[in-house]
C-alpha cells in the first residue's frame, strides 16, 4: 500500500467512517476506488479490478456509461433537480416511459424517491393506505434498505443497532420458499402487503422454487394483501426480461426500482403503482414529499437507461454473458467440487456457493488480489454475489473466468488447507 493510500485511509477513519474503513482493511480489501470506466475500477494505487459487484446492479451498464454521461451533461443545460411541488417535465416523461415497461397492464403511476430505501418506504406506505391495514410481511433475512419502514422490513442486522426494529408486531418475517409460513402470516387478513425481492440479493440470491412466487401472489389475493416486488437488483434486463417478476409469472401491485435505473450517474428510485393502489395520489397528492426524489436530472438519465436496456443487443448480450460465464464457472466448480459447491443463477443474477459458512469472504479477498471485485452476501457469507454487467465484453468475461479459477483455488487452500481435492 502506498504512503498516499495509508494517509488517505487515516483521513477516511478520521472524517468519514472509522468502522467501515477498518473492516475492509481487516478483510484484506484495501480498496479505495479512484478512476472507473466501463466494467473496470481502478484503485487509487492503480490496481485494475473487473467489477462483478456493480453495487447491486447500479452499474449494470458499466461505470460512467458514455451515453449516460452525455445525456446527463446535456440535461444540465436545461434541468436541475426541479421543484417537487409542481408537475415537472422530466418526472412525467420518465413515469410515462416506466409505465410502458411495467410488469402488468394495471400499472399507472410512478412515485419518486431519492434512493431505494425511501422508495421502499413509499411502497409500504402506499400499500398501507390502499389496504387500510398496517402489517407487512417480508422474507427472513430480507434486505430492503435503511429508512424507517424499509429497515423494519429487513433483517434485524440493520435495525437493532439503532433501536429501530419493529416493536409493534407490524413486520412479520417468514422463511423464503416456505408457502405454509407465508399462508400462516396472511391468514389473519390483517396484512397490508407482502414485500419480496424477486431474488433476495443480500441473502445470497437463493432462487425462488418453481411456483413459489406465483403462489405467494395467489395467497396475497386470497387474503387481501398486496404484493410489492422489490426489483432494485433484479430488474433492468438482468434476468433476460425487463423485470424479473414477469419471468416468474407474477404481476405485482406495486413495484420498486432503483440502483441501476440511473446507471450510477444521478441518484433516483421509482415506485410503480397500479391504479387500484394509487388512491393517496388523488386523495392527498402532497402525502409524500421528497425534495430530491425524482430529481429531474435523474429522470433524464433513467430514461436513457430504459432505452439502452431495451435495445435488442442488450437482451442477447445478457444471454451470451450468462451462458458463457455459466459454462466457465461449471468448469471451475468441477475442478474444486469440495469447496465451490454450487451455482445459483438466473441470467446475470448469480450466487456462488462455497463449502464454509463464511467461504465467500476468502474468495472475495483472493478475487480482489487477482483483479476481480465481487462481494460476499452480507446475510449469508457462504455465498458470493456474482453480478456481471449486461454489456460485459467477451474479453472481460473470459478474463474474469481465468482470474476466478486462480482465486477459487487460492481461497480453497485458505479455508481447507492442502487437503487433497476430491476430483
Amino acid at each position, binding site marked *: 500500500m502506498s504512503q498516499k493510500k495509508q494517509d488517505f485511509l487515516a483521513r477516511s477513519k478520521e472524517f468519514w467512517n472509522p468502522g467501515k474503513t477498518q473492516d475492509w482493511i481487516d478483510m484484506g480489501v484495501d480498496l479505495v476506488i479512484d478512476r472507473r470506466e466501463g466494467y473496470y475500477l481502478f484503485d487509487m494505487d492503480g490496481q485494475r479490478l473487473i467489477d462483478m459487484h456493480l453495487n447491486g446492479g447500479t452499474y449494470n451498464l458499466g461505470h460512467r*456509461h*458514455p*451515453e449516460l*454521461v*452525455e*445525456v446527463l451533461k*446535456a*440535461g444540465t443545460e*436545461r*434541468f436541475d433537480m426541479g421543484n417537487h411541488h409542481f408537475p415537472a*417535465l*422530466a418526472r412525467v*416523461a420518465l413515469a*410515462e*416511459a*416506466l409505465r*410502458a*415497461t411495467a410488469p402488468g397492464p394495471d400499472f399507472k403511476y410512478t412515485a419518486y424517491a431519492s434512493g431505494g430505501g425511501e422508495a421502499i418506504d413509499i411502497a409500504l406506505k402506499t400499500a398501507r393506505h390502499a389496504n387500510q391495514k398496517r402489517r407487512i410481511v417480508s422474507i427472513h433475512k430480507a434486505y430492503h434498505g435503511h429508512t424507517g419502514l424499509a429497515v423494519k422490513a429487513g433483517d434485524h442486522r440493520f435495525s437493532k443497532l439503532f433501536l429501530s426494529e419493529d416493536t409493534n408486531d407490524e413486520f412479520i418475517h417468514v422463511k423464503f420458499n416456505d408457502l405454509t409460513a407465508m399462508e400462516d402470516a396472511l391468514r389473519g387478513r390483517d396484512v397490508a402487503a407482502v414485500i419480496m425481492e424477486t431474488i433476495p440479493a443480500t441473502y445470497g440470491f437463493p*432462487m*425462488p*422454487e*418453481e*411456483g*413459489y*412466487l406465483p403462489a405467494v401472489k395467489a395467497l396475497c389475493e386470497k387474503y387481501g394483501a398486496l404484493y410489492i416486488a422489490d426489483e432494485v437488483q433484479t430488474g433492468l434486463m438482468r*434476468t*433476460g*426480461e425487463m423485470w424479473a417478476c414477469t*419471468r*416468474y*409469472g407474477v404481476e405485482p401491485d406495486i413495484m420498486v426500482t432503483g440502483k441501476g435505473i440511473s446507471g450510477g450517474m444521478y441518484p433516483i428510485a421509482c415506485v410503480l403503482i397500479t391504479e387500484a393502489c394509487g388512491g393517496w395520489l388523488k386523495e392527498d397528492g402532497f402525502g409524500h414529499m421528497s425534495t430530491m426524489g425524482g430529481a429531474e436530472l435523474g429522470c*433524464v438519465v433513467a*430514461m*436513457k437507461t430504459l*432505452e*439502452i436496456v*431495451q*435495445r*435488442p*443487443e*442488450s*437482451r*442477447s*448480450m445478457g*444471454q*451470451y*454473458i*450468462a*451462458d*458463457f*460465464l*455459466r*459454462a466457465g464457472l461449471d468448469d471451475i466448480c468441477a475442478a474444486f467440487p469440495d469447496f465451490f459447491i454450487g451455482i*445459483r*443463477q*438466473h*441470467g446475470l443474477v448469480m450466487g456462488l456457493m462455497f463449502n464454509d459458512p463464511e467461504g465467500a469472504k476468502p474468495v472475495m479477498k483472493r478475487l480482489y488480489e487477482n483483479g476481480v471485485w465481487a462481494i460476499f452476501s452480507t446475510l449469508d457469507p457462504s455465498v458470493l454475489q456474482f453480478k456481471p454487467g449486461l*454489456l460485459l*465484453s*467477451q474479453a472481460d468475461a473470459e478474463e474474469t473466468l481465468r482470474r476466478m479459477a486462480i482465486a477459487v483455488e487460492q481461497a480453497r487452500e485458505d479455508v481447507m488447507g492442502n487437503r487433497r481435492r476430491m476430483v
Partner: protein
Amino acid sequence: MTAQQVEPLVDISNSDAARVGRAEMMLERARWAATVFERYDREATMAIVEAVAAKAHEHAAHFGEAVVAESGFGVAAHKKIKNELTAHPLVDFYRDQDFVNARVDEARKIVELPRPAGVIFALTPSTNPIATLHFKAILALMTRNAIVISPHPAVRESSVAAAHALCEAAVAAGAPEAVIQILEHPTIPMVEAFMHSPKTNLILATGGTPMVRAAYSSSNPAIGVGPGNAPVYVDATAEITKAARRIVDSKSFDNSVLCTNESVLITTQDIEKQLKIALKSAGAHICSDDEVERLRRFLFHPRGFNVGAIGRDASWIAGECGIRVPSSTRILVAPIGRIGVEEQLSREKLCPVLALHVAKSRDAAMTQARAVLRLTGAGHSAAIHCRDEAVIMRYSGMVEAYRVIVNAPCSQGAAGFATNLAPTFTIGTGYFGRSSIGENIGPQHLVHWTRIAHNSDKGEPFGEYHGLKREFRGPLAHAPADGVPGAGAAQSPRHAPQSPALDGASKDELRRLIAEELRDLLRK
C-alpha cells in the same frame, strides 16, 4: 408501447457518444456471436451456410423487385439472377474448401489452423444491394465470422428485411444468435463510428470512393474496392458478331449497374464498319454526333454524373435526350473521338451507354485502353475479344486491371459468372486501385491461419497430425433460470419498434446522401 417511443426530453442522438454507444453494442454482440461460432465444426458450419443459401435463393425474386421499387433503378429480373448467383452457386464454388479444420503439410512440416477474423463490418452498395448482402453474409458464415452490415440508404428497407431473413435462417439452422446484424439507420457519421471502433476486426467496403477511403483511413484492417471503368477491346481477329452480341448483352444486363460492365469500347478502323453493323443487329443504337452531344449533356452535369440516369434503360435515356430509337433498343453507343479528361463519356457510366472509340492501329487501341483506366477504374476490369493469344497477353500486360475477360461478357465474367474466376460481388482492385487485395474477394480473405511450424531439421520428427481432430465444443448451453418453469430456454427478442416514417427533412437528407455517394462513385 415501449419506452423508446416516449419522446426524449434531452436528445443526444446526434452526439458521438450516442453513435459510438450504438456501434459498440452491435459490435460487441457480434463479438459474442463470433466467439460462440468459433466453437462450431465444419459440418455444423456448412449446414448453416446451406440453410442461408436456400433462404437467399428463395427470396431472390422478391428482393429483385423490392430493390427496383425502392431505389428506382435496375432490372428486377436481372437482380433476381444476381441474387440467385450469390446463393447456391456461390456455396458450390467453395464447397470443397475447408475454412474450419487444420491443414497438414507433411513436406514442409507445417500445420495450419484457420482463425476467423471475428467481427466483420460490411458495406453494401445501392447498385447490387441484395446480391452483395448475400455474398458477404455467406462468406462470413463459411468462415465462422459474425457480420454487421451497413446497407446503402437508398435500399435500406429491402436490405434490412433481407438481412433479417438470412439471420433467422442461420439461427434456425443452429447459428449463434445475431451472427448477421444490420444497421437499420445508416448515416455517414454512424458508419464512421463502426469503422473506427476497435471492436471491428475487418471492414469489407463496397461502395463509393469516399466510403472506401474512409475504411482505409479508419486504422482498422480493411478490404475496400475502387470503382470500375472497363475498357473492352475488339481486335481484328475477333469473331465480330459474337463479340458484339456479348458486349450488348453485358452492357444491358441490369441496365449496367454492375461496376464490371463495359464502359468504353475500343476497336480499329479496319473492322469499324463491320462491328457497328453487328452491334446494331444485337440491339444497339449508334448515335450521331448530335445525339452524342445530347447524351453527354444529359449524363454529365457540371458537378458530375447525373444520378438520375443510373440503372435506367436505354429507351428511357434516349427519350430524355430527345433521341428517337426503337423501343427494343438495348444500349446506346456513343462514338467518341478521344479518351481522357476532356471526354466525359470516357468515364464510368452506370447505365446502358457505351462509348466507342476507333483507333488507328492495334498499338494505338491498347494505349487508349490503358488511358481509360488511368482516368478512373484502375485495378478493376478490362475485356478483350480476340483470337490471338499473343495479343491477349500484350493487352493484359498493358492495362492496369487485375482481371481481363476474354471473349465473354465483362459484367458477368469479371464477377466470376461467365468465367471460372471466383464468383464475387466485391472486386479487389489491388495496388493499382488503392486496395489491399487484387483478386476477387472470397472466403479466404476472411480468415488468417495460425501456422504450426516444426524444426526443419530432418532429425526432428514432425509427428502425426492427420489423426488429430480440432476440438469443437459447439453451441453454448443456455444458462439456467432457476425457479422459472421450463427454465433455461431464453425467449426470443421482442421485435424492435417500427421506425417512424421519414419526414420531409430526412428524405431530403437521404436524397442528398445518395446523390453524393453516387456522384463520388463516378467521379474520381
